[in-house]
């Protein structure tokens, strides 16, 4: 314990078993995320009414996150913005993950031609910088919530498809699966009883690992002005609006919402990492 402070911030409680720590971190991150989302619903939107007498206030006891140039309470705006960003991110990641799952399984299950086709499309999707691909798709679809969701899904299915394909191919060549075929089991029975139980946790973890990426990408797209419109103040919109007020010294408009976004993204990351540890039979009992 040479540096207790640094130790404490990295390992919540030294001395616990890894399983207990994993469960603790899982509960803590899930609880915090839930609390943020519930608070967003509970706080209501009365903080959003414009009140020019209290505009441009730095953080103070009555307005913990300060107020913006119209006197709106930034705490309210951040909580509502986070809720919107999280919902759009989760929806986009889920759509992308399902596409990835279907294509990955198709590549593994429908013969070498299908495999070649899917692998080629995965290569194609990965040949562009994510953001450039997303700008192209959002441009084609016409921006908005739908544009962001399609753009994020279209750029993230490839990683999931790749993982699912590799897993399914590995399972297919496993001895017990081969044996099962020899014993006369139908492909459907094998898929249901042998392959899916192994793929399901992998898919779940890959999906949750996508959440942080999807949320940051929504923020980035909205930030550059090609995602959500200012009528839907997600985190990206909040940050892009604050950019115009930076030079006047209103630092809290940019710094606090961004920090809140980092916190939420990190919490999803912690959630996914610990879930993976718990679901992986090799590490779950340590």
């Amino acid at each position, binding site marked *: 314990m*040479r*540096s207790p402070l*640094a*130790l404490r*911030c*990295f390992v919540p409680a030294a001395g616990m078993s890894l399983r207990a720590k994993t469960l603790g971190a899982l509960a803590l991150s899930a609880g915090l995320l839930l609390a943020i989302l519930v608070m967003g619903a509970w706080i209501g939107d009365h903080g959003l009414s414009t009140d020019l007498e209290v505009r441009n206030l730095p953080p103070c006891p009555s307005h913990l996150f300060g107020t913006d140039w119209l006197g709106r309470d930034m705490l309210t705006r951040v909580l509502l913005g986070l809720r919107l960003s999280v919902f759009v991110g989760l929806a986009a990641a889920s759509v992308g993950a399902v596409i990835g799952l279907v294509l990955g399984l198709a590549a593994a299950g429908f013969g070498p031609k299908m495999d070649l086709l899917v692998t*080629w499309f995965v*290569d*194609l999707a*990965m*040949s*562009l*910088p*994510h*953001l*450039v*691909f997303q*700008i*192209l*798709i*959002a*441009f*084609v*679809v*016409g921006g908005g919530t739908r544009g962001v969701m399609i753009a994020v899904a279209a750029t993230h299915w490839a990683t999931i498809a790749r993982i699912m394909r590799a897993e399914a191919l590995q399972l297919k060549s496993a001895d017990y699966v081969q044996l099962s075929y020899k014993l006369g089991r139908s492909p459907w029975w094998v898929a249901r009883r042998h392959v899916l139980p192994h793929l399901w946790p992998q898919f779940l973890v890959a999906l949750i690992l996508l959440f*942080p990426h999807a949320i*940051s990408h929504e*923020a*980035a797209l909205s*930030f*550059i*002005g*090609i995602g959500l419109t200012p009528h839907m103040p997600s985190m990206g919109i909040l*940050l892009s609006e*604050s*950019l115009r007020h*930076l*030079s006047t*010294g209103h*630092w809290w408009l*940019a*710094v606090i919402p*961004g920090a809140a*976004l*980092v916190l939420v*993204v*990190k919490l999803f*990351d912690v959630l996914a990492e610990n879930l993976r540890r718990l679901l992986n039979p090799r590490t779950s009992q340590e």
Partner: protein
Amino acid sequence: MLRYLALKGLHGAVLLAGLAVLSFVLVSLSPIDPIRAYLGDAATRMSPEQKARIADRWGLNDPAPLRFSKWAGRLLVGDFGVSRIFNKPVLQVIGERFWVSLNLMVSAWLLSGLIGFGLGVLAGARRGSGLDRCIRLYAYILASTPAFWLGMVLLVVFSVKLGVAPICCASPVGVAYAEATLGEKVRHLALPALTLSIIGVANIALHTRQKLLEVLESDFALFARAQGETTWGIVRHHGLRNILLPAVTLQFASFSELFGGAVLAEQVFSYPGLGEATVLAGLRSDVPLLMGLVLFSAVFVFVGNTLADVVYRWVDPRIRLGGGT
């Protein structure tokens, strides 16, 4: 090696062709009216007959495969069309802006490589110490931080509060980029480059740390220690040459994130490079420019990945002697 490069080039050409088809299909499916997109407000004052004549003249009523082959044929001879925003040929816009972005990307790339590698070596050599934990915590938080927000924080601190860095652009207001002095360019480059470099640091630091730990736990490191070598001696004589190659490879393979990050960093600092052009093309429906940038960024990423591969094969004596490819 030549055979390998030829194969790689063929693979890249096929990928680019696929990308051209994909972007063509995407843009054809989009609800954007090309006449409106090109003529802007003038389109609203035109009669339907005039529009029909233009559509006919531009070949908008031709079947899609014919339109694609015309477009692809022009791409092959280097005609990417004219950008409506800049009123210049697309290739000229990309060429001019590429040099502005290249300064930014190269300095960020070097910075993130050096800082990341240094932090990784420190953390790995002092495994379990407070320093290691702090570096890991730092990389861990950095990995979830959006680059554009970090750029805004840097702006607040250095430009607004301290006033030591310019608040925007690649050159002083009213001075063209080509005419700015080197000092002015560097001053305007510092914050965007720092912002962009921070994305890569976390990845390379954690990776380097892991590789160094593997080396330090190896039998040859144990043997060196038995002969009286210090930890830093092992790192210098045995560690560096073993971990440098994976780090360099990783760094070359990060061209994709570098380009994506440049889009955001340039947006925050109004830096007139390729990233800003991409955003403008998307926002203002400049289709030829957007298509040109899509294809260009794909080439950029492909070159990075190929370099990573080539460096690996060329430098690593194990592959060079045994592989023969």
